[in-house]
């Protein structure tokens, strides 16, 4: 059993400047998770008592003030991150019509400290072994599973679940890990039955939850080729619950047939990553990149929330780094993680209704970015900031900074392929063809010749068979997402 966090803020998982509302919310969450009635683990009872004690002190303003005064001063030093917002324009003109504004938000993480110990990760690998995985796909999955397993550090918690119409916990999270046994089991996997992702996911979730610690990386990696039948909403519901409890789900789609929209939703709900692997050879690359970075987070469970002014509407959020992906617009948003020494950045698209006259400044939104930085004594840290702009009289020739311009360009390319796919799906073949041609033109002009050629291949296919291929859909989606976003 690990030591219980020594300060009350860490115990409750809240920042030093938590508002009374945030305090109450955190307490209720912890109570729900740790109450002896719902959590039979022996450690849960102790932690529950400790949490109660922390809450009783912090909820009383006088006791909280004197508790704060006694905290060691180094706890109050803000984390070593740099935070920046860039707007697409310097001021807002007073217009009689709605207008667009983009805001690029970035956080830089500090480099890895040499003496910093990496926190143990709690990873569950959930592997699809349904009939459709037979042959090459199964081999790909086995290679991927073994690569993922080998990237697990000694001391980490690891569990393995396979599933088809039912789930099978091959390596439970509380057991000892025998590497030979695990690798042999993976090698011996054979394909049978149908795909029911929910079963596998639920088993994986229970394994991770059994060893759940707020301060470590709790990660489910789902490896599947599969379309699942009828249990999508149950899976998404489970993902939301997992996100609430600090569990991230990443999804790795194998082959051409998998349901990318669903797996993408599943991952983004929890701030995880969704990747497409068409060949076994690509797996190692991903293992060294994205998945590695999830387990080497400086900050995890980044959550973005905003209170928008009535005239302001949030239209789109697109994360650029560390992994490009749309984030959905239902606030608050699970925005992912920040790897050590890396950058986290996302772009907001806002529309602003006509503004009243005689205004010099306008506040657009109050925002909150909550980070969980496990290496700190008080892991939760919240950046609170407002988005505001002066009202301008048609500022002369102000162009957006190259950085945000490039970010908007990346987002535009991603949305262009989404648009083309929607048009093709609703039978507007001509529009879809034109959209894809525009996309190809843009990709060629940016030197992305390989992806542009794939787009042109789909144009030809669209013209001859009135549909975009399944493989093409994924190539376009993940191709436009993985376009290099160099901030300099």
């Amino acid at each position, binding site marked *: 059993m690990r030591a219980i966090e020594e300060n009350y803020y860490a115990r409750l998982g809240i920042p030093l400047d938590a508002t009374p509302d945030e305090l109450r919310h955190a307490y209720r969450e912890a109570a729900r998770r740790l109450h002896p009635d719902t959590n039979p683990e022996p450690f849960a009872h102790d932690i529950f008592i400790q949490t109660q004690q922390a809450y009783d002190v912090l909820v009383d303003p006088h006791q909280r003030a004197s508790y704060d005064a006694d905290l060691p001063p180094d706890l109050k030093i803000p984390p070593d991150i740099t935070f920046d917002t860039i707007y697409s324009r310097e001021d807002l003109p007073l*217009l009689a019509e709605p*207008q*667009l*504004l983009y805001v690029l938000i970035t956080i830089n993480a500090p480099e890895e400290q040499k003496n910093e110990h990496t926190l143990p990760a709690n990873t569950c690998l959930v592997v699809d072994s349904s009939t459709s995985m037979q042959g090459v796909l199964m081999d790909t999955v086995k290679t991927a599973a073994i690569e993922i397993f080998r990237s697990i550090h000694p001391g980490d918690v690891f569990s393995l679940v396979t599933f088809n119409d039912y789930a099978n916990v091959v390596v439970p999270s509380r057991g000892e890990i025998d590497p030979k046994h695990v690798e042999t089991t993976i090698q011996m996997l054979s394909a049978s039955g149908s795909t029911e992702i929910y079963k596998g996911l639920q088993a994986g979730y229970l394994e991770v939850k059994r060893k759940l610690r707020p301060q470590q990386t709790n990660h489910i990696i789902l490896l599947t080729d599969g379309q699942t039948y009828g249990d999508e909403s149950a899976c998404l519901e489970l993902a939301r619950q997992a996100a609430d409890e600090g569990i991230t789900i990443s999804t790795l789609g194998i082959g051409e047939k998998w349901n990318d929209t669903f797996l993408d939703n599943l991952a983004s709900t929890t701030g995880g990553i969704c990747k497409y692997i068409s060949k076994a050879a690509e797996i190692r690359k991903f293992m060294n990149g994205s998945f590695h970075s999830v387990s080497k987070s400086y900050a995890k469970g980044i959550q973005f929330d905003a209170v928008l002014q009535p005239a302001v509407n949030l239209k789109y959020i697109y994360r650029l780094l560390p992994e490009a992906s749309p984030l959905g617009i239902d606030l608050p948003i699970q925005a992912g993680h920040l790897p050590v020494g890396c950058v986290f950045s996302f772009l907001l698209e806002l*529309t602003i209704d006509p503004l009243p006259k005689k205004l010099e400044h306008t506040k657009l939104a109050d925002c909150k970015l909550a980070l969980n930085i496990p290496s700190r004594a008080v892991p939760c840290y919240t950046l609170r900031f407002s988005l505001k702009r002066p009202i301008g009289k*048609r500022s002369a020739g102000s*162009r957006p900074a190259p950085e945000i311009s490039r970010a*908007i360009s990346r987002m535009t390319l991603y949305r262009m392929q989404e648009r083309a796919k929607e048009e093709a799906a609703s039978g507007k073949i001509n529009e879809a063809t034109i959209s894809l041609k525009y996309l190809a033109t*843009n990709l060629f*002009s940016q030197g992305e010749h390989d992806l542009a050629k794939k787009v042109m291949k789909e144009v030809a296919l669209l013209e001859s068979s009135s549909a975009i291929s399944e493989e093409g859909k994924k190539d376009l989606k993940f191709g436009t997402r993985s376009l290099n976003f160099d901030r300099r």
Partner: protein
Amino acid sequence: MIICPNCQNPEMPGAVFCQRCGTNLDSLLQSQPSAPSFDKMYKSPSEQAPMVNISLSIMDAGQVLPLLGKNEYTIGRISLDQPVLPDVDLSSYLAYEKGVSRMHISVRISGRKVTVTDLGSINGTQLNGKKILPNQSYPLDHGDTLTLGKMKVQVLIREK
């Protein structure tokens, strides 16, 4: 409202890239509070459906390119790093070697009237041997010769 110069998609003021064709709208970033609406600009009463067919005869190559289906055509050449594409691509007729710009001229048809506008090309455009000013429209008649850089093109106009 701002209008994308490439695909005529209407966008909100403040748009940085056209959502439809991806064109960078930086230069249009300024709001245009009194800008004419899409309909006014592109479907004004003076605009008439084309009543003539136009072809371009590439004189050195002896080839004729018919222009079909629109009332305005941009003519130039396509190269790799180019966001905005002309409707008519002359690159297979050694356009680069002959100094044709990527967006060199536009030809517009309204009723029986045909006009040409140089789109600010690097090497300029001559109409029957006389240089024309950029961004101004000049009337075209059947048999007129346009010189784009050094490439000679004859304009053929026929009643529909």
